[in-house]
């Protein structure tokens, strides 16, 4: 029962890699966007806000298909990226990371935005009067004080990314060793006769990863909060 086969390990490791890359790339973008949404007023803000949340409400298949249209080999951006930068998403693990990143983005952005909104602007003003220019105020005051929210967003995003299924399989298919994540491997196993035990093993692995991520986040968040409150 607990002998995880090499194929299954490949899927597990791929999932971890895909979710990690997706989260690490999405985090700086998410922080920038969260800051814009929390602290700036500009034309088209509600539209941008809606766009960020779109993957949360669209059927994942739709998001996956849109990604295929945009980032496929002949897609609008896909062709350009492949020809000029040599970056290919279609049917690659990088495409899985892109799909997971897009799908988890709303969950990543939201806690960061809320925590930036909660940072006392009076502290930012104090930093300004001490000579800190705006980007230094952001990196010295706003971001450190919003850190618990950033960590929460990263964990939520990671958890969502590791479990993502619909958009990923639509965009990059289900190729063992390249795009077959835990979710798509479980899906394949369930459809195979006698695949139940193997599917169950992967189910357990995914539960372990999710619980570990949550515990890790809790520990980090507690430490960060304690640091902020000076204890």
């Amino acid at each position, binding site marked *: 029962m607990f002998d995880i086969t090499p194929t299954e390990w490949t899927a597990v490791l791929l999932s971890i890699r895909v979710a990690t890359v997706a989260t690490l790339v999405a985090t700086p973008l998410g922080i920038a966007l969260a800051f814009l949404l929390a602290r700036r007023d500009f034309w088209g803000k509600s539209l941008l806000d809606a766009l960020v949340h779109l993957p949360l409400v669209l059927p994942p298949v739709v998001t996956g298909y849109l990604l295929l249209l945009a980032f496929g080999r002949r897609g609008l951006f896909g062709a350009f990226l492949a020809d000029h930068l040599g970056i290919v998403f279609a049917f690659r693990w990088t495409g899985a990371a892109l799909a997971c990143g897009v799908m988890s983005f709303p969950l990543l952005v939201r806690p960061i935005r809320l925590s930036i909104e909660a940072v006392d602007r009076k502290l930012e003003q*104090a930093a300004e009067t*001490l000579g*800190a220019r705006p980007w230094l105020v952001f990196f010295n005051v706003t971001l450190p004080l919003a850190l618990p929210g950033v960590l929460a967003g990263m964990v939520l995003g990671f958890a969502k990314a590791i479990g993502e299924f619909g958009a990923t399989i639509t965009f990059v298919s289900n190729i063992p060793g390249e795009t077959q994540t835990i979710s798509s491997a479980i899906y394949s196993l369930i459809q195979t006769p006698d695949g139940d035990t193997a599917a169950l093993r992967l189910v357990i692995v995914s539960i372990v990863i999710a619980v570990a991520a949550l515990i890790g986040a809790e520990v980090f968040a507690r430490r960060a909060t304690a640091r902020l409150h000076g204890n």
Partner: protein
Amino acid sequence: MLRLDVTKQLGEFTLEAAFESEGRVTGLFGASGAGKTSLVNMIAGLLRPDRGTISIDGEILDDTAKGIHVPAWRRRIGYVFQDARLFPHLNVRQNLDYGRRMNGLPDDAEQKKRVTDLLDIGHLLDRRPGKLSGGERQRVALGRALLAKPRLLLLDEPLGALDEGRRAEILPYLVRLRDEARIPMVYVSHDAAEMRQLATQIVLLQRGRVSSFGGVKVLS
């Protein structure tokens, strides 16, 4: 010399103030809601006047007619807020050092020692603001503003959030600061006794307008 002539509409309230002060400590005196904090925020550059000019020693900081507005971080004006506003994620030493670092000033151990001695905060350096009393926090906030080497120090009711005992604890430090630090100050308060002890010139603010200006006698 601080020279100011500004108008600012704040909701229903119109702030329209003009004065010129050369005093060591300019006391901005008035009831709450008279517009003292808004006026100080404009001097600091945190609030933009709708119309008018602000200048220090001839250097223009705001001139709406010419479209000049020097941002707060380039003004070198220290600000001590009523609620201290220490950075909670930094310890006292890092809080004190912040202004110097942001202004790219060289480390001045002698000045640091002078200021920490003056304010009696040397024993607090490794603590976080969360572990300080209200009076200690306010002293650290004073030190933090001073160590940025400002050309003007704004103090907005720095004793306002403290109880009677704490006030009596801080007031002597402010007097020493006035006599030793040689930085011109604008001191905001609605407490006449405090003003008499500290200010050398008084600007009396009533409902957004300067109603009198002069020596401490104005208060009586």
